[in-house]
């Protein structure tokens, strides 16, 4: 991918906007890209850049313990700290146990971004990530799922 040079006077750097803000009502103060016909690719690329901005440039380093179904809750003993808007939004969802996939879906954050941020919040002591002791489910757990599934109509 080629990134636009922010110092190039022909294509000045512009703040990028999250997709759901772009779709919101413009009257609500949403940032509106100026209609410039000669450079539509820049709009495309700035949207693609956003996940890297949120994760401070990281694209990997995801904690392998954090799966899509992994349950996350707030750490009740965590002290108040200043967090990015995305991180605040994640913490705000975790008062009830919630899965990483649900966080990603509800906040419309990419799954990879969500996993990195959840890992950061865990390292910062804000979230408890409930890692399972045994990776493969035991027969007793599977039996419980079977009984529960049979019970539904």
């Amino acid at each position, binding site marked *: *991918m080629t990134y636009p040079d922010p110092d190039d006077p022909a294509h000045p750097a512009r703040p990028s906007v999250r997709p*759901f*803000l772009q779709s919101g009502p413009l009257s609500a103060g949403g940032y509106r890209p100026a209609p410039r016909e000669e450079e539509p690719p820049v709009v*495309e690329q700035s949207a*693609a850049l956003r*996940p890297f901005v949120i994760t401070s440039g990281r694209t990997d380093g995801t904690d392998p313990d954090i*799966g*899509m*179904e*992994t*349950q*996350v*809750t*707030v750490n*009740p*003993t*965590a*002290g*108040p*700290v*200043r*967090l990015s*808007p995305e991180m*605040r*939004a994640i*913490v*705000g969802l*975790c*008062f*009830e*146990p919630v*899965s990483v*996939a*649900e966080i*990603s*879906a509800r*906040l*419309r954050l*990419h799954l*990879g971004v*969500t996993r990195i941020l959840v890992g950061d919040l865990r390292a910062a002591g804000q979230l*408890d990530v*409930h890692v*399972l002791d045994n*990776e*493969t*489910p*035991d*027969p007793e*757990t*599977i*039996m*419980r*799922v*079977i009984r*529960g*599934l*049979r019970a*539904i*109509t």
Partner: protein
Amino acid sequence: MDYEQSPDRIVGTAAVGSGGARPKKAPVPVKIIVAGGFGVGKTTTVGAISEISPLTTEAEMTSASVGIDDPGQATAKTTTTIAMDFGVLTIDQTLKLYIFGTPGQSRFAFMWDDLIKGALGALVVVDTNRIDDCYPAVDYFERAGLPFVVGVNTFNGQMSYSLDEVRWALAVREDVPVLSFDARFRGSVRDALLVVLDQALDKAIRQKSSYP
């Protein structure tokens, strides 16, 4: 979304949430994969069994996987976002079943390693008109040793081929169940998932007896 309006809120246990209630004990999550090509009824399957309407999470497809995708007019783009639907079924207070729907084509295989980790098993949804869509998923689950079941989605009760013909076309092992189900009906999806769980139970018991 409330974080858009509160740029300077300080996060603490008392500052956010409803009354600072202590989080409940987290349930144990288990998951089943629903794989299949576009339009075979994955989302319908997930939606039929889920207690919430299916949620969508997005993952990035890296440049390495884009080659076989139709480049079209977006050739300058090196990442593509793919959507994945999933649903939830609460078994009880301490156990939650997640059902993840994932595209079955090989160009999406980059995310399967993550997906199958800890998964109970998979339901491969097949449309008999486009049976080859599911070959990569079948190949992958066979190699990964994940218990799976082939489920032929009978649109309107119609099947172009018999289950024996589907089994022959897929060349799956004798012990892999091939069944038909209707993705629109909860009871039908439930029965298909119960066959997946049967396979998962068999495997778990075999593993437990070989490594006591």
